[in-house]
């Protein structure tokens, strides 16, 4: 409907209570002020409404945020829905931002044209023209596939030579900077290359063998001494034991003792003849302890020997550390790479991949709650309204509330027809009786009303027309409680869109699809 100047004056007169002449006068004054401001190159702002500015004689109007928001009160709570890849129309021209598919195909063109999508996707594959780099990759793949059957190792070398010598495209791309020396970085981990470390291990093993030889020699020496002790007097043997085990302890702590060779010869002879007597060993160890305590106070040089020993024992650890370092390095690189892939959205990792600022429609919809109009319905989770018991209270009209309520409930309540669902009725559909079990699907919203009475009147009207009408209350802090009357219950967005296409005027001109709950 068009509101011309005279009609606007009438409405202003009725609304404000100001006389018609004064209204016309003030309206003319307003227009004159705006034109003067624009003529002077200024802008004229009406608080809460917008800004008038001008280019030449042409007046431009920029609506205020309040106005732009308030005229969209019907869509409060609706946020962009990220579509699943399966229900999205393919776009071959993907480099273009914000492609509006609805301009030519309607809002659900992508959902309704699955066959075209398949054709497009096939076409996209057929139109792929291999570039030089892709050709090279295919060539390498074929070589890799053939490689398991190449039992002759010489052919591998020949292929490598060919790769090195081949000019042109093979030298382009990533292989241009291929360095064979780098390829061997991880070869040690794969077991196909010997590292120089085993030499160090051998040396360390030799050192360890020397150490253990020394200890064995000490055992042999003890055996020899025990044999001597069995033949000689105890007191003399004690003195000798002190001397001998003192030397033995020194040998144990100082591996470079030049007298080791002499003791080894003696121990070899003794080892061949007798076994160890453990009692004598204990006595000797006590004597050795005493001797060690005495010498620990006297000879500080033993500390240096101990440090020497610790230094020699280090190579045995160092042999395994490079492998451990490589393993740790690979784990760190793998973890970092995975994190990077997740962070940049290549791989969807919960908690790492940044979530877009969009969310599902009506995210704040917890469990349904009962609604007061129906008392006789035996406690379904979502109670149904009783349209027969309610008379239309006011003519249905899209009227926003002038003063939004300060505090609004934060839950969405859904109700439908109170009649029992027929046995043969499918769970989802456009027509029939609303089924509370189908409230997990989608619906086509055709009315958003601020008054419950108007909404229920519309609900009854649609029910009488045979539609499966659903009434949902949407809380809004800005506009108060909104009542959405919608048609049908559909399992998916696609089926809802298909059904919406069958709607007739006036529903076909202004609707939107959203989740029921």
């Amino acid at each position: 409907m068009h509101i011309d100047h005279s009609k606007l004056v009438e409405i202003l007169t009725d609304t404000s209570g100001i006389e018609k002449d004064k209204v016309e006068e003030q309206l003319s004054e307003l227009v004159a002020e705006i034109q003067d401001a624009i003529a002077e190159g200024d802008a004229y702002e009406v608080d809460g409404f917008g800004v008038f500015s001008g280019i030449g004689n042409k007046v431009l109007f920029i609506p205020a945020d309040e106005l732009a928001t308030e005229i969209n009160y019907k869509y409060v709570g609706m946020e962009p829905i990220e579509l699943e890849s399966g229900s999205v129309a393919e776009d071959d021209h993907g480099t273009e931002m914000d492609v509006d598919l609805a301009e030519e195909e309607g809002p659900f063109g992508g959902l309704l044209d699955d066959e075209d999508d398949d054709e497009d996707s096939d076409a996209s594959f057929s139109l792929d023209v291999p570039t030089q780099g892709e050709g090279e990759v295919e060539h390498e793949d074929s070589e890799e596939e053939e490689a398991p059957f190449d039992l002759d190792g010489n052919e591998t070398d020949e292929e490598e030579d060919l790769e090195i010598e081949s000019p042109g495209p093979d030298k382009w791309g990533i292989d241009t900077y291929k360095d064979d020396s780098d390829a061997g970085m991880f070869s040690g981990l794969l077991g196909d290359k010997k590292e120089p470390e085993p030499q160090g291990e051998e040396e360390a093993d030799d050192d360890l063998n020397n150490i253990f030889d020394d200890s064995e020699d000490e055992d042999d020496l003890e055996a020899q001494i025990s044999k001597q002790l069995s033949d000689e007097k105890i007191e003399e043997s004690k003195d000798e034991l002190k001397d001998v085990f003192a030397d033995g302890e020194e040998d144990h702590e100082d591996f470079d003792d030049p007298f080791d060779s002499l003791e080894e010869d003696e121990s070899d002879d003794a080892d061949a003849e007798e076994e160890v007597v453990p009692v004598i060993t204990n006595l000797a160890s006590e004597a050795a302890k005493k001797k060690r305590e005495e010498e620990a106070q006297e000879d500080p040089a033993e500390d240096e020997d101990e440090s020497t020993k610790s230094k020699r024992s280090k190579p045995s650890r160092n042999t395994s550390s490079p492998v451990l370092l490589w393993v740790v390095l690979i784990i760190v690189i793998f973890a970092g790479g995975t994190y990077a892939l997740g962070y940049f959205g290549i791989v969807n990792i919960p908690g790492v991949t940044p979530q877009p600022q969009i969310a599902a429609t009506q995210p704040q919809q917890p469990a349904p709650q009962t609604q007061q109009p129906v008392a006789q319905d035996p406690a379904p989770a979502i109670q149904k309204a009783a349209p027969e018991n309610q008379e239309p209270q006011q003519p249905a009209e899209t009227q926003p509330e002038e003063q939004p309520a300060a505090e609004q409930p934060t839950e969405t309540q859904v109700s439908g027809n109170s009649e029992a669902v027929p046995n043969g009725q499918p769970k989802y559909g456009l027509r029939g009786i609303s089924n509370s079990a189908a409230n997990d699907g989608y619906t086509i919203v055709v009315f958003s009303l601020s008054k419950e009475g108007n909404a229920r009147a519309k609900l009854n009207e649609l029910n009488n027309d045979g539609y499966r009408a659903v009434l949902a209350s949407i809380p809004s802090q800005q506009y108060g409680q909104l009542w959405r009357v919608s048609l049908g219950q559909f399992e998916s967005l696609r089926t809802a869109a298909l059904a919406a296409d069958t709607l007739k005027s006036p529903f076909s001109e202004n609707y939107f699809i959203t989740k029921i709950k």
Partner: protein
Amino acid sequence: MTNEFLETLGIIIRDQIIMKNSVEIDGLGLFKAVHHNQKQEKKSDGTNVMVPPKDTVEFTSENKG
């Protein structure tokens, strides 16, 4: 011209636009509502988004410049 008048005028124009009516003011121009359907958009990151519908105010100046 009082502030009350300006406020009333803004509310009336807003309500008429919500009701899909166009409002014309002589010497100034025509206000009308434009409905933008729910539509799919492909974002630069490759995600497809179903954008909810919205209404906007379109102003046509009386002076075409």
